[in-house]
């Protein structure tokens, strides 16, 4: 049976792939429950001591606060901008539309490191902004493509007859937008916002170039922490972040279906 053989090969590859992706995460979560001062795998006993330590570490808590508000604010900026840009790209008939779309999605392709250096040079040259403002701007820029992408996917799927029907039954253009179009694509916009939030919260490479001593995001705080100490409080913190992200993803999947939102 040839089909069976190839099926086994595919399944094995998929299994190995998942193992490769997940093994480090499993290691991190497992070691976080030990009580040793140095990470050991498997942990020799079970303890939540490093969770307590992580939650008591001021640099972590300060970083968490910074990361949360920057993620929230960047999402609030990028979501309406991205949604509006998606409308323009989808509805507009103007020369250079494809170029504009490519440009707007470019932050997806440019490495965070490069964007970070570019922004640093630009901000310094123009002498604008404090660290929080620079972080906010940089993060909004990087998550903008997600908002555009998910809104665009929703717009492409939207039946044009819906808006025609609204107009035909007496709705003005504004009423059509408010009562019909926006509710129909709200899921896409919301999903883009969630993705953007997670991405901003997670962002390290870009942030490296935009922080200052008083404004440090959580990923940067973790990096500087492990520069001079390798205690498992970092693994405890990482485990909590993994859980939070996982819960968010499950929420998105349950509410809207990931595949549909990514326009696949």
């Amino acid at each position: 049976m040839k089909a069976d053989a190839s099926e086994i090969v595919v399944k094995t590859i998929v299994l190995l792939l998942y193992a490769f992706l997940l093994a480090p995460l499993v290691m991190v979560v497992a070691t976080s429950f030990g009580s040793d001062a140095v990470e050991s795998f498997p942990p020799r006993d079970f303890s939540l001591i490093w969770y307590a330590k992580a939650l008591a570490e001021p640099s972590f808590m300060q970083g968490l606060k910074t990361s949360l508000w920057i993620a929230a604010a960047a999402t609030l900026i990028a979501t309406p901008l991205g949604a509006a840009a998606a409308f323009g790209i989808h509805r507009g008939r103007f020369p250079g539309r494809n170029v504009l779309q490519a440009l707007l999605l470019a932050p997806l392709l440019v490495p965070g490191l490069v964007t970070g250096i570019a922004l640093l040079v630009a901000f310094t040259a123009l002498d604008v902004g404090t660290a929080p403002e620079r972080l906010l701007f940089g993060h909004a820029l990087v998550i903008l493509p997600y908002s555009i992408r998910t809104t665009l996917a929703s717009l492409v799927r939207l039946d044009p007859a819906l808006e025609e029907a609204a107009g035909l039954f007496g709705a003005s253009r504004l009423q059509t937008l408010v009562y019909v179009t926006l509710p129909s694509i709200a899921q896409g916009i919301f999903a883009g916002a969630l993705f953007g939030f997670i991405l901003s919260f997670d962002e390290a490479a870009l942030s490296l170039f935009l922080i200052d001593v008083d404004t440090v995001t959580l990923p940067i705080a973790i990096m500087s922490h492990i520069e001079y100490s390798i205690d498992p409080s970092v693994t405890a913190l990482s485990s909590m972040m993994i859980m939070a992200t996982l819960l968010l993803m499950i929420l998105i999947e349950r509410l809207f279906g990931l595949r549909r939102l990514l326009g696949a």
Partner: protein
Amino acid sequence: MASIQLHNINKRFNGASTAAVSSVSMSIERGEFLTLLGPSGCGKSTTLRITAGLTKPDSGRVLLDGRDVTPLNPAERRIGMVFQSLALFPHMSAAENVAFGLKMRGVDAAERKQRVARALDLVHLSQLADRYPRQLSGGQQQRVAIARALIIEPSVLILDEPFAALDRKLRETMQKELHRITRELKITTLFVTHDQEEALMLSDWIAVMNEGRVEQWGRAGEIFEQPKTRFVADFMGVPNFLTARVIGAEADGARLTVDGISFDAPAAGGLAVGETVEVALRPDRIELDPAPSGDGATIIDVIYHGLASSYTVALPSGRTLTIRDTNSGSGLSRFKSGETVMPRIHAKAVCYLSA
């Protein structure tokens, strides 16, 4: 006064090499049901969209109840429309969908509620008012779409192939429903379909369209009985196209002959003995009689349909005819492939074609 009047409508889409609609004119009276019938791409949907105001014509005028509405948008035309995709608002309940047109026109909540209840009752959907479209079956969604279109008391109801996606049984139910509703309300209706049976059962008037033009316009029965062109005949299910010779032309009837088979035909002006004439023969008005072998026509294909069987019959000249002959009820076709038969062509089978 005519309820819908189209005057010499022309439309060519940007970049298209041929016109989507060219020189289309038609008019129907208040309360009548008009169907635009034709294959996909024949311009029927574009004509409908121009009537609704969703597409602007390049030239020509649209009049509703005698008023020139050509420059007006769809809402100003007071049109109720059922879209091909139905276009129900997915985030609104059935009742909210139906109420939409009233809400946008500023009708107050109390009156809205009353009229929504009446509209849902008309389409037998009162119990499902709070369901969302995705919780309704295909037929129920159709009913919501019809109720939404009717609630604004439109001057014209427009439907764009609404039943195309339904299975056969449900389609028949919905056709009967639409027939009942439009007759009950005496509302002027413009309907688009590619299904000739649907057109016949619903319409007072039919406009058969082909390549952007009205190929034939007439009462439903007239289109069925007297298709004037090869295209219309073919579309109405009349496949046998022949050139016949006139051997008799009287005031009360004519006599034609093809390949040695002679038959009576309806009287037609301008026929002269010795002339040839283009005809189409209706397959279910030709009977088959058994004939001794070597004399008559040979059956080359048989398809059993239940009530009748359709036969492909080869005449001595090699020309084939499609014939639909009623079965005797034995569960079998009356003739088998290879048998010799004599086709008996009834006068009512003959449709004269112009060119």
